[in-house]
């Protein structure tokens, strides 16, 4: 339905969007994930018609809309920091898009009420938007975006400015709202938890280019490159020499059937290593942190090789542990363009 082809946007010599292509199907929720400055917002602005690309095309239902002005596209865009109209009430903010489509009177009023109910702001219609809390403003912005029933809804870090607890609640609510509306959704965020919790598909951006595009579980199981893996929080990489279906890591050997022979860069996902008294790999605990009910250990298994290992119980620094390894949680990561140094 939406098809962005090879979009490039340059500000001076710098390409903030670099040959980026992305397609979105009806009803699909796509999360665009990346660190700040990776071009996520620019991508939304190009799709919305607020930024002209230097090259490339935006297609909507097969029609080239690259030079259609923003107000004729009929998309919805919810801005970071919401961009509410400070001189209009809550209801008048939500009704703005309807006014522009010449929807007025009772029809508009009932639609506004319907949306305020949807976002949990029933009865707030007459309030001034300047006196709302951050969470309430966010809800007004969402209602305003959805009111004209756009077929494509874009959200730019919609809950990034809110505090943790509120964000978790809203992620669940948003997921429900996205399920109810029939629109395609493009959701920009730098938080992988949000992206994974909401999206049918996750697109990862870096330096204006798209470096990953897959459903969440696939992206997690088989990160296409080291950048994506590290951005998702997986940073245990080892070099292995593979021959005869066995990967030799230097400090241990693992049977791996579907790995090409030769030198390979392998990613050990966090669940690959477990503390196991019957394990064959010996190591020394060099660090231990506690988070979300679990201990995360840093275990040195060979000089200079430290692995992140989850543990349900605390282990003091300096103690010896034995580990076991699950070969199915080990992934080959193509070397390619990304290096760890510039993450």
């Amino acid at each position, binding site marked *: 339905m939406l098809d962005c082809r090879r979009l490039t946007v340059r500000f001076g010599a710098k390409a903030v969007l670099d040959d980026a292509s992305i397609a979105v199907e009806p009803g699909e929720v796509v999360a665009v994930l990346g660190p700040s400055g990776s071009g996520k917002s620019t991508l939304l602005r190009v799709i*919305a*018609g*607020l930024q*002209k690309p230097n090259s490339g095309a935006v297609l909507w239902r097969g029609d080239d809309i690259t030079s259609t*002005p*923003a*107000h*004729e*596209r*009929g*998309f*919805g*865009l919810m*801005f970071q*920091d919401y*961009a*509410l*109209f*400070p*001189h209009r009430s809550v209801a008048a903010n939500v009704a*703005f*898009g309807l*006014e*522009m*489509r010449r929807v007025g009177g009772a029809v508009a009023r009932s639609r506004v009420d319907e949306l305020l109910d949807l976002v949990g702001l029933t009865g707030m219609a007459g309030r001034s938007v*300047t006196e709302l809390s951050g969470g309430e403003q966010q809800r007004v912005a969402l209602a*305003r975006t959805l009111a*004209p029933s756009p077929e494509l809804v874009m959200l730019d870090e919609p809950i990034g400015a809110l505090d943790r607890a509120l964000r978790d609640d809203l992620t669940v609510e948003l997921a429900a709202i996205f399920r109810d509306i029939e629109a395609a959704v493009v959701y920009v965020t730098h938080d992988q938890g949000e992206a994974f919790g909401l999206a049918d598909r996750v697109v990862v951006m870096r330096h204006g280019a798209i470096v990953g595009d897959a459903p969440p579980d696939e992206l997690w199981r088989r990160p296409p490159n080291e950048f994506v893996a590290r951005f998702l929080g997986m940073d245990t990489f080892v070099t292995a020499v593979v021959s005869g279906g066995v990967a030799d890591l230097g400090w241990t050997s693992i049977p791996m059937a579907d790995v090409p022979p030769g030198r390979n860069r392998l990613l050990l996902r966090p669940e690959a290593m477990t503390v196991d008294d019957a394990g064959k790999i010996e190591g020394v605990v060099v660090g231990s942190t506690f988070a979300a009910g679990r201990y995360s250990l840093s275990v040195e298994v060979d000089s200079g090789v430290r692995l992140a290992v989850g543990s349900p119980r605390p282990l003091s620094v300096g103690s010896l542990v034995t580990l076991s390894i699950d070969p199915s949680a080990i992934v080959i990561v193509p070397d390619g363009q990304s290096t760890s140094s510039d993450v």
Partner: protein
Amino acid sequence: MVRDRALRRLAGAAALVPLGFLAYFFVYPVLSILASAFFPPGGFGLDAFRELAARRSLLGVAWFTVWQAVVSTLVTVAVGIPGAHALARHEFRGRKLVRAATIVPFVMPTVVVGSAFLALLGRNGALGIDMRGTVWLILAAHVFYNYAVVVRTVGTAWERMDPRIEEAARVLGASPWRTFRSVTLPMLRPAIASAASIVFLFTLTSFGVILILGNLATATIEVEIWRLATSLIDLRGAAALATIQLVAVTAVLFAYSRYQERRSVQVQPAAARPTRPATWRQRALLAANLGFMATLLLAPLAVLVERALRVDGGYGIGNFRRLLVDTPILLVKPVASVAYSLAYAAGATVVAVTIGLMAAAVVARRRGLVGRWFDTVLMLPLGTSAVTLGFGFLVALDEPVDIRAAVWLVAIGHALVAIPFVVRITVPIMRSIRVRLREAAAVLGASPARVWREVDLPVIGRAALVAAGFSLAVSLGEFGATSFLARPDAPTMPVAIYRFLSRPGSVNFGVAMALSVVLMVVTTVAVLAVERLRPDDTSGF
């Protein structure tokens, strides 16, 4: 603790100095005017007002005063908004220079503005049409003079407006024009209203421009007060008229401050970065805007210079030479007025900055009722026309000691006009000193005196410099009060220029033009110096 109390007492004393100054040089003269309007010899009476009302011409003057102010304001706002947009939203080479240049007409002495428009559209004007005495000439001069107020005030608000709010409207289906009407304009409304009320106030009490460009049919109340007091020597009539104007202006100011109060609730979000015009339409619009700005701002001043250099049968510096020789029109050589002006300006600046900073310190520290009340009192001279102030000095300051002939009284009058501006400029700067900084310095071991020296003083020093430049400009250009106070043997440049302009003959006209050019240059230098020192974070004009 003891030291704290001592400091507070010192601050209390600091508040008394500006209050005393205002009481003697402002409240007392104004009350004297009211007294002579309401209390003719022999007790209370409204005869002065009745006599005024009986004169049909005065009704005409009042009517003209109001409608020319309304039209001037509307036209200035209409042409100022596109200018504000160009400077706020577009990046182009020389943007900072243009922005700085827009302020020049506003601080140009009114007499220079009058001279410039005479040079352009007066007898033998550069455009070949004599429009003296028409309202068109007055409107043009008012737009020229006040353009900066709109461009600055509205432009600053525009710069601070989050562009994403307009973009949100675009995405929701509003065309560019619809976005401007439904989103941009309503959000700018407070700034536009604020600029409009300032322009309205200035044009309502316009004096120098109208005295030079107008005639009996095109006179404002301000000019009429001056005429009654100086030519007709009808002091009671002048006092009654001044009273009426005082009430009207106070009402406008009151409405304005009420509006400001309501508006200050709104918090402006993040600022926009100006962008280079992208489409040919934007480029054309920007070019048209800059072209208009250049024509409006440069043409009158350029013509002024041209006329100053014009002598019989060509160009030369003959008019400037005449500044150095005796003339029957002044008791001194014209060039002496330059020295007097600079001396008055120096004195006025010292007084205005000293008293203004003391007052600003009180306003900035006290945010409660006391601070607001004090703030309002300090703004009162702004609402009182300069002519009324000068007239008040004349009526009041013969008692207890007759100081009306004192040379320094001119400097005091100028300081009085400048103090509200000094306070306006310095209070935001002083408030920008963050409490956290003081606390940080104290925690790191600085004594209260040391904190003041390390944290407050550098900022206040900068504020004082900016205020000094502004006071200089105000004093150099002041004409309304000066026309009452300057002694014939010690005239200021504006007074000298007006003398030459009010006499016939091309020689006198040439000398007036030359002296106007000198005044323009001196003022411009002072203002551009201010513009360089001005910290970026202060807004308005």
